[in-house]
C-alpha cells in the first residue's frame, strides 16, 4: 500500500495536461538498456501487518533487565513533555530554516538551544548541533587544524575509545598525525574527556595553560548531566567544548539518533562547523531569528567549507532544549546530585581495592572482578541485570574490568539487589 492520493481519473487528467499517454512515457529519458527488468522485492503489506512485523522484531530485543550500562550513553529519566512537544508535526516535518519568515519556531528554538549550551558550559558560542559525540571529536579536531595550521592532533587516554576509532577513520586519508598522550608541543589541539571514559573526574585547567603556551587548543569532551555540579569546560579554559548530548532527553536508540554538541570561544567562531542562529529584526523592528555566518557552510563555500555537514540533529537539539527547560536550574543540579550519590552508594558496597579509578568518580566507575567480566555479565543477565560494559573488548581495560553506570532512575532497592547479585556471581 502507498500514500499516493491520486485517483486513476486524476492521473489521466494530469497525463493529458502534460501531453503524454502513460506514466511510462515520462521515463523515456532513461535509455532502454538501463531500465530495470526485474528485482527481488517482497510485496507490500497493510499497516496492520507492518506493525505486527515490527512488534515481533522489537520483541526479540531484551529490555527487561535493570541496566547499569553507560560508557557515554545513559538511561536517564525523560519527562513526557519532551516526547509530546518534539512530536509536533510543525517541528518534526519542517526542513532546515532557509526561509526564516515561516521558520521562526525552528530558528528561535535553535537560538534558545545555543543559549542553553553556553549557559551549561560557560562557553561563548554554540552551534545548532552536529551528528553525535563521536563525530563531534573529528569536527573539533578539524576545526583546530584549520585554526592552528598544524598537522598533529593529540587524543588523551581519557577519551572514549569508540570516539578515538571514529576520529582515526575520518582522518585516515588526511596528512594528520593522530597520537595518544597529553603533550601539546607542535599540536593543533589536545583532546581530553571529563569525566574520563572510566568515570574519573579530571580538572584540565593546568593542561589548558600548557596548551595555550604551546600554541595548541584544548578540546574538552564533557558529560552534559554532570555539569549540574561539575567544573565547566569554560572554567577549565577549554577552547572547544564538545559532548554527546544523548543524556539530555534523548532515548538510547541503539546508537542513534543522538546529538553532537559543540561550543567555542568568540575568537574561533569563524572556523566553527555547523549552523548558527542569530537574533536580528525586520523593517518594523520586530525581533526575529536567522541563520548567520553561512559563508562557513557547504551550500555557499562548497569545497572550501568548514565542514561538509548539511543535515544535522536539529530535532534532538530541540529535545535537549526542552529537557533542560523542564529540569531548570535546580532540576539539573538535582539530577547530577542523585546520579553522583547513588553511584557513590553502590561503590561503597564493594571493597575499595576492587575499584580501579584513581580519583573521585561522578556516576560511573570501574570494578575489577576476580572473574572474566564478559562471563559475569552473562550470568548477571539471568538474574535480571545488564551489569555494565566489559572493558576488555573495547581495549579499555583488563578482562575482569567492568564499567558500571548509575543514573537517577536506579532505586536503592535495585542498587542493593545488584550489589548482592554481583558479589555472589563474581566473588564466590
Amino acid at each position, binding site marked *: *500500500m502507498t*500514500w499516493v492520493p*491520486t485517483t486513476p481519473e486524476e492521473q489521466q487528467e494530469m497525463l493529458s*495536461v*502534460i501531453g503524454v499517454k502513460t506514466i511510462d512515457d515520462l521515463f523515456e529519458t532513461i535509455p532502454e538498456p538501463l531500465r530495470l527488468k526485474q*528485482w527481488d522485492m517482497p*510485496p507490500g503489506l497493510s499497516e496492520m501487518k*507492518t506493525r505486527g512485523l*515490527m*512488534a515481533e522484531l522489537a*520483541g526479540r530485543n531484551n*529490555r527487561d533487565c535493570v541496566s547499569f550500562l*553507560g560508557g557515554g550513553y545513559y538511561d536517564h529519566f525523560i519527562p513526557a513533555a519532551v516526547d509530546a*512537544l518534539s512530536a*509536533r*508535526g510543525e*517541528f518534526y*516535518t*519542517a526542513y532546515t530554516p532557509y*526561509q526564516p*519568515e515561516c521558520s521562526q*519556531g*525552528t530558528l*528561535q*528554538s535553535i*537560538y534558545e538551544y*545555543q543559549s*542553553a549550551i*553556553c*549557559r551549561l558550559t560557560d562557553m561563548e558560542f554554540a552551534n545548532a548541533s552536529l551528528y553525535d559525540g563521536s*563525530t563531534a571529536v573529528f569536527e573539533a579536531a578539524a576545526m583546530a587544524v584549520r585554526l592552528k595550521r598544524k598537522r598533529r592532533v593529540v587524543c588523551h587516554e581519557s577519551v572514549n575509545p569508540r570516539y578515538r576509532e*571514529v576520529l582515526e577513520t575520518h582522518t585516515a586519508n588526511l596528512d594528520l598525525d593522530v597520537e595518544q598522550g597529553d603533550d601539546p608541543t607542535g599540536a593543533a589541539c589536545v583532546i581530553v574527556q571529563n569525566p574520563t571514559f572510566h568515570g574519573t573526574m579530571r*580538572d584540565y585547567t593546568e593542561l589548558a595553560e600548557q596548551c595555550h603556551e604551546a600554541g595548541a587548543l584544548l578540546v574538552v569532551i564533557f558529560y552534559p548531566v554532570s555539569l549540574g555540579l561539575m*567544573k565547566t569546560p569554560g572554567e577549565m579554559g577549554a577552547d572547544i567544548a564538545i559532548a554527546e548530548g544523548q543524556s539530555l532527553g534523548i*532515548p538510547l536508540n541503539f*546508537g*542513534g*539518533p543522538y546529538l553532537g554538541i559543540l561550543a567555542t570561544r568568540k575568537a574561533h567562531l569563524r572556523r566553527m562547523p555547523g549552523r548558527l542562529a*542569530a537574533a536580528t529584526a525586520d523593517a*518594523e523592528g*520586530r525581533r526575529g531569528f*536567522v541563520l548567520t555566518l553561512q559563508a562557513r557552510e*557547504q*551550500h555557499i*563555500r562548497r569545497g*572550501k567549507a568548514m565542514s*561538509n*555537514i*548539511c*543535515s*544535522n*540533529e536539529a*530535532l534532538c537539539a530541540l529535545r535537549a532544549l526542552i529537557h533542560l*527547560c523542564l*529540569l*531548570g536550574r535546580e532540576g539539573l543540579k538535582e539530577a547530577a*546530585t542523585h546520579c553522583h*550519590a547513588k553511584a557513590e552508594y553502590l561503590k561503597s558496597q564493594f571493597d575499595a581495592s576492587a575499584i580501579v579509578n584513581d580519583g573521585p568518580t561522578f556516576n560511573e566507575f570501574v570494578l575489577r572482578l576476580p572473574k572474566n567480566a564478559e562471563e559475569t555479565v552473562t550470568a548477571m543477565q539471568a538474574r535480571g541485570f545488564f551489569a555494565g560494559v566489559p572493558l576488555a573488548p573495547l581495549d579499555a581495560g583488563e578482562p575482569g574490568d567492568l564499567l558500571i553506570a548509575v543514573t*537517577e532512575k536506579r532505586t536503592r532497592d535495585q*542498587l542493593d539487589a545488584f550489589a548482592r547479585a554481583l558479589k555472589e556471581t563474581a566473588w564466590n
Partner: protein
Amino acid sequence: MELIYEKSRKGRRGIRFDALDVPEAAFPEEFRRKDDAALPEVSEFDVVRHYTNLSRRNFGVDSHFYPLGSCTMKYNPKMAEAVAGNEGFAHLHPHLSSSAAYWPNCQGAFQLMHDLERLLAEIAGMQEVSLQPIAGAHGELTGTLLMAAYHRAKGNTHKDTIIIPDSAHGTNPASAAIAGYKVLEVPSDRDGTIHLDAFQEVLTDKVAGLMLTCPNTHGLFESDVRKIADLAHEVDALLYYDGANLNAIMGRCRPGDLGFDVMHFNLHKTFATPHGMGGPGSGPVGVGERLAPYLPGPRLKKAGDSLEIHMPAKSIGRMAAFFGNFMMAVRAYAYIRQLGSEGLTEVSNHAVLNANYIHARLKEAYQPAFSKRFMHECVFTATPQTKHGVRALDLAKALLDYDLHAPTVYFPTTVKESMMIEPTETESKETLDRFCDVMLDLAKQAEKDSAALTEAPRRMPVGRLDEVRAAKELNCAF
C-alpha cells in the same frame, strides 16, 4: 514572541525528583562549578505552552505544501513514527553490541539492520550496504574514504582528484575536500546534463573518482551515464552516486546497473524519516564488488540461527560509534516493507508525474531552465520576471503569504534566478492545482504590481529580516 529565558521566574520548578533514597554524598569541592548553570526556571506548563506556540510559527509538511526542490519533502507516514516509538527499539543500549555476551539481547535489531541492508542493496542494485553514515553528507564522506582505501590498496597513490559537475550539491565538493581530495568542477552542457567533452578533457589518470547525482540537480536524467561510467573505469576512477534524487527512479532503474560503484541513500528523503527542522537524517552507503571489502565495520554476519558482528580485515573502520542512526533504519525498514515492490515503483511514478504536471501548468508563465523532460522536480528561471523588478526571492516570499512554502531558490547555482520545484508523490492534484494557480497569479502580479511582491511576506510573524545586522552583531545566545 518572548524567549523561554524571559519567562523564567526565580524559584519556579518544572520536574522534580523523589527524595534521595541513599545517603547524601559529598561532591569534591575542587571539581564543583562556581555558579549554577543559569537554565530557565519555568513550570512544565510554561514549557508546553511556549513550545506549542513556537511550533505554530513554523511551516511543516504536515501543515503546508512544501515543494523544496532537492529536499523531497513528502508526507512521512505516522506508522513509521509509531514503530520507532516501540520501546524494544528506542530503549536499547548501544553497548549491548560491544560484548558478545550481550548479543542475544539485540537480535531483533541485528535482524532488522541485516534485512534493511539487503532491501536497500536490491533497490539500488548494489552488492552490500552499511547503515553507519549518519547523514547524506556523512555518506558522501564515507564513500570518498572507501574510494581512497581502494586506491591505496591498489597502489594508485597518484590519484588525488575527484571530478564533480558544477550543478552538484555543495556537500559533494565539501565531502571530497574533507576526505583529502582535490576537487575539479566540470561545467554542465547547455541542455542541463554533464558535458561529455569537458568531462573527457579532465578525465586523467590522476582522477580517483567522479560524483554524480542522477537524475541530476536540474531534475534531468543523465542519459550518457553508462558511457561516463565506462570512461571512468578505463582509468580506474570510481563512480559515486549521490542518492538525493533516488525518489525519482525506484523500480525504474538502479544506480548499480547504471555503472555506479558506490552511493549513499538519504533515508530522510526517500524512506520515511521526517526532516526534523534539519535532522536527524541517515545516509547509508551502498557499494559494488570493488569496494565491498572496505565497508565501515563492524558488519553483521549469520552464525547459525543468530547474527553476530565482526570487523572485516580490510574495513576502513568505524564511521560512527555504533550503527549510525538506528531509529531511521527502523522507520525505513517499516516503510519499505509496507510499500513493497509495487508501492516503491508507484512512489517514483507519481513523484515524476506530479513534477511534470506542475511543469506543464507553469511553463507558459515561467521560463523552464531546460527543454528536456524533467523527472521528479522541475527547474524554472525567474530571469524574465526580473525585468519587472521581481526576483526569485520575491516570488518565494510571496508564496509564504498564501500558506505555501517556497520552492528551492538560487540552487542549482548553474541557473540564474533558479526556482526548483519538487512536489513529491504524496501531494494531491488539488494541492498541486492550488500551488499552480497561485504561481500563475504571482506571474501576473509581477507584471502589474511588483511592489506587492517585493514587500512580501506580510502575513508571517515577521517580515524580511536584517541578515547583515545579524552577522554584524552576532547575538547568538541570550
